[in-house]
Structures are given as structure tokens and as C-alpha cells.
């Protein structure tokens, strides 16, 4: 080691570095708490999002227009059609915080539905006011209280939408290509989310709760699962 190198090697211990104050970490945490809460329980404001192509594309598929229009009112879910769903969706389910079913149930005010047909879920997640249950398959059921805000479903043109009956009430069956949800987060950023699982989706409302069941199986299986929530599966 030459002299310069020796001097350089001595510098880290010689410099008068500041020490972090004992309050630094707690100040960081309290700032996060005061400036960013609620975040762990992220408030997602589901709102109508304007997408220019929606009106045109819906108009192209006249058969589904009435069903779509009805569901605007019925399910609090807006359906629109786009040429292409965002391509990189579906990798990360990002369902929120994993927790036990009872923990999750205690965090929402509505009564959770359990599809008897599937038994207890393998995993349960909570995010904002949404509870997601996952079973092998994978099968995903999300439930959330109907609020004044809305989700928007974007559907590629080669996807079919069918009006179906579920335990005496209306439901919507979306089958085919990938579809995605769009919503605005609390900062007003537009967030696009995949239909969590590529596959088919059954949407319905019951008892003030939005239900979304996603699975690879067909309509019969979806209806059987959904009906098992209401004791008719």
C-alpha cells in the first residue's frame, strides 16, 4: 500500500460524520403515519373513468348493449369495450394484505359470502374495502361493498357478455379474452388492473355487495359455485 492509499484507507474513520439522531426513525414513521395514512388499508376510490374508445366499441356490438346498459344500473360495474386490453396485466395479482378469513371478515361491514362448494379458501386478502379469496384452480372471488364509486370493466372485442340468472337475480357472465379493470387511486392516478386471472368472470350484486368470481371454468361451474353461497349449490 502506498502512502496515498494508506491515507485514503484512514479517512472513513477520520471524517467527522454525523450520527443519526435517536429520533430519526421514529420521525420518519410518524411522518408516514400523518402524511400517508391510510395506506396499509389503501383507500381506492373506484370511479367512472372516461375512455374515449368505449362508446364507439360498444356501439359495434349491438347485441350486448342492452345487457351492458342494464348492468350499469344494476351492478355498479361499468362495462366498456376496447380494442386491446393492456398487455402486461395479470402477472401480479396484488390482492392486498394476506390474512386469515376471520381477520378479513372483521375488517368489512358487509356479510361475507362463502361458496360452500369450494370449501374454505386457500388464501384470503384484504385491500381497502375489498376481500379476495383464492382457491386452487385458480379460482378467485372478490367481494366489496357497493359504494358511490364504480369500477369499470374493459373488455376486448372478442369477449362475450351474457346476461344470466343467478339464484333468482341478475348476473353478468363475461367469457373469452382477457379483460381488465380501470380505477383511479387516491391521488387520481389511473390504474389499470387485469381481470386478476385470465379467464372468465361472473359479476353480480347481492345484499349490498359486489361479487366478482374469476375462473378458467365455464358458466355452469361458475353458477354452481356462486349459488353455493346462497345455499342452492
Amino acid at each position, binding site marked *: 500500500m*502506498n*502512502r*496515498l492509499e*494508506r*491515507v*485514503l*484507507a*484512514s*479517512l*472513513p474513520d*477520520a*471524517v*467527522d*460524520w*454525523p*450520527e*443519526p*439522531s435517536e429520533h*430519526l*426513525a*421514529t*420521525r*420518519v*414513521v410518524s*411522518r*408516514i*403515519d400523518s*402524511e*400517508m395514512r*391510510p*395506506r*396499509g*388499508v*389503501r383507500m381506492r376510490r373506484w370511479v367512472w373513468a372516461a375512455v374515449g374508445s368505449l362508446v364507439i366499441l360498444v356501439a359495434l356490438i349491438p347485441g350486448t348493449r342492452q345487457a351492458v346498459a342494464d348492468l350499469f344500473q344494476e351492478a355498479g360495474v361499468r362495462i366498456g369495450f376496447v380494442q386491446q386490453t393492456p398487455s402486461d396485466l395479470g402477472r401480479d395479482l396484488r390482492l*392486498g*394484505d394476506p390474512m386469515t378469513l376471520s381477520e378479513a371478515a372483521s375488517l368489512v361491514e358487509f356479510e361475507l359470502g362463502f361458496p360452500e362448494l369450494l370449501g374454505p379458501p386457500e388464501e384470503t386478502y384484504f385491500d381497502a374495502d375489498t376481500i379476495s379469496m383464492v382457491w386452487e384452480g385458480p379460482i378467485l372471488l372478490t367481494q366489496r361493498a357497493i359504494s358511490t364509486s364504480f369500477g369499470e370493466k374493459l373488455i376486448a372485442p372478442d369477449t362475450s357478455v351474457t346476461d344470466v340468472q343467478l339464484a333468482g337475480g341478475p348476473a353478468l357472465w363475461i367469457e373469452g379474452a382477457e379483460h381488465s379493470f380501470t380505477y383511479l387511486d387516491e391521488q387520481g392516478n389511473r390504474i389499470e388492473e387485469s381481470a386478476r386471472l385470465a379467464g372468465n368472470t361472473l359479476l353480480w350484486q347481492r345484499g349490498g355487495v359486489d361479487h366478482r368470481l374469476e375462473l378458467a371454468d365455464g358458466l355452469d361451474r361458475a353458477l354452481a359455485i356462486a349459488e353455493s353461497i346462497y345455499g342452492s349449490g
Partner: protein
Amino acid sequence: MEGRPLQEGDLIERSRNGDVVAFEQLVRAHQDVAIRMAHLVVRDHAEAEDVTQESFVKAYTALSGFRDGSPFRPWLLKIVRNEALNRVRSAKRRHQLALREASDPVSGGAAPSPETVVVTRSDQVTVLAAIDALPDRYRAVLTHRFLLEFSERETALVLGIPPGTVKSRTSRGLERLRQIIGEDQM
């Protein structure tokens, strides 16, 4: 899960899900090096503390953009460095790095033999001043490598330059340093 100390990856994941207690552990684990990084740029203890605090808050909000499996420390320190650089852009003067109170000579151990070169405070002051006199690109690399004791790889990640560039700037920076100090001096 039981009894297992949480790994950094677990803490990051929990923090991302809003667990501020987990994030506090990350802060405590990295605050020493973070404040040094800040001080290297702002050259003021109180300001460095402030920069560090601000950087951790920013890091928390930026966690969703952190790539899983990539090293956390350089990602965090990059935020600290940027925050510090933003502060000094508005300030004109840069103080020199001060030495802590210490006794001469610095190189410890046994009594120096004729071959052992004793490092004096005056050597240290000279070298620190020479580092400050270097062009930015060399100063940044040398301070990371020798004052913060980062590896070439970590220096590269924090500065956002290829490791090969860190290597070449280190060697050219040292040459420049010798020229500034004067060959006969060191």
C-alpha cells in the same frame, strides 16, 4: 414464520403493504450509511439528518417501484443522494469535510518502523481537499469507494454508471489526486 428474524426482503414486502413498523426496522438498519451519504453531499450535520429523514419518507412512497430481488441499499442510497443533490443545487458553497477530534499520528499499532508510513492529520486534510478539487465525476467515484467504502458494484448502482466506468474513473481519479497533491508529497 415463528421466531425467524425477518429478512430484508420480508421487511420490504411488509412495508410495501403498509406495515410502518417493518419500515422502521429498515430505517434503523440503513440510517448510518444514509446519513453519511447525505453528509458527503451537503456537508452539514443538521442538513444531512434532514435529508436522510426526507429520503426515507420518499423511499417509503417509492417502494412500489422497488424491484424484488434487487439490492435494497443502493436503491435507497440513490434516493438519499438525489435528495441531497437537490438541496445543494440551491446552495452556493460547499464546506470541506471536517475531521473528527483525534490524536496524531493516526496509523495505530506498534511504533512505526522506517518502512511504515505514518498517516498524519495533515495528510488527511490534504487528501480531502484534493478530493474536493477533483472534477465531479472523479470525486463522486472516489468518495463512494474510499469514504463510504462501497464496492465497485455498489458504487456503480448508486451512481447509475457501469462497473467498468467505476473502475476506470477510480484509477484516473487517483492519478489526478496525485497530480493535485504533488508527486513528491505522496
